């Protein structure tokens, strides 16, 4: 049963990821990526990682993707066809991505098999356990992450702010 769920979600997530790359309109790409994140959350639930599953939905599918969608709507890109790279580049890029996949999967062959320790993994993904780890071993990175967020917010505001000089004359004409 678990296996069936895994394979259905795996195939669907690969298909939606391919739709992100190959769909013509960027809005379709965003929606496919949201579907991919939902399917990956399903995988996290299968892996007994409830906290990560919910945070993935809230942060990724909720916040980050809405940000992408908002920027897409803001920029109002014309629906004209996005210029494609040359065929030579596309073929070589696809070949190299395929070779990367072959290398990654091929490196699994002959790997040492560790016995699964699934006995303790039923509680490992619960909020209580993760909170203990986060606020004992990782409390300094956790606090530094808040500084990172403040820096990111200030930076985003500074970058996005229209200054007066730019309104009258463009910064550079490309």
């Amino acid at each position, binding site marked *: 049963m678990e296996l069936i769920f895994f394979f259905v979600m795996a195939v669907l997530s690969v298909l939606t990821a391919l739709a992100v790359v190959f769909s013509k309109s960027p809005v379709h790409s965003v929606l496919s990526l949201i579907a991919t994140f939902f399917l990956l959350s399903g995988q996290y639930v299968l892996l007994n*990682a409830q906290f*990560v599953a919910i*945070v993935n939905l809230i942060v990724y599918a909720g916040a980050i993707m809405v940000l992408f969608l908002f920027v897409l709507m803001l920029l109002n890109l014309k629906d004209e066809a996005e210029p494609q790279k040359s065929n030579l580049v596309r073929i070589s890029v*696809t070949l190299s991505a395929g070779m990367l996949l072959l290398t*990654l999967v091929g490196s699994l062959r002959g790997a040492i098999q560790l016995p699964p320790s*699934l006995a303790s993994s039923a509680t490992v993904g619960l909020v209580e356990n993760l909170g203990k*780890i986060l606020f004992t071993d990782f409390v300094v990175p956790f606090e530094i*992450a808040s500084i990172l967020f403040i820096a*990111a917010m200030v930076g985003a505001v500074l970058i996005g702010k229209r200054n007066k000089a730019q309104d009258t004359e463009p910064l550079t004409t490309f």
Partner: protein
Amino acid sequence: MPIEYYLILSSVLFSIGVLGVMIRRNAIVVLMCIELMLNAINLLLVAFSTYLGDGHGQVFVFFIMVVAAAEATIGLSILVLIYRNTKGVDIHQLDHLKH
């Protein structure tokens, strides 16, 4: 459920993300493909964390999400700035450091 399935799925998703970064010219889609690669790595970390019965991997996933949120914020604001100057988000227009 063997862990190899998760390894292979994660590798496939990561390779699709790499392909998207290299094949698309729309900068927003390139950023989204970077998010896809990050999510492939998240899946790998969670799989190993569950498999080994150790929660540290899931805490790493939490931090990856934090950094990814900050990165998306800054990246998209830079894109808005670029759009104001070039009226487009084609990455082939952004090669002025070359010339």
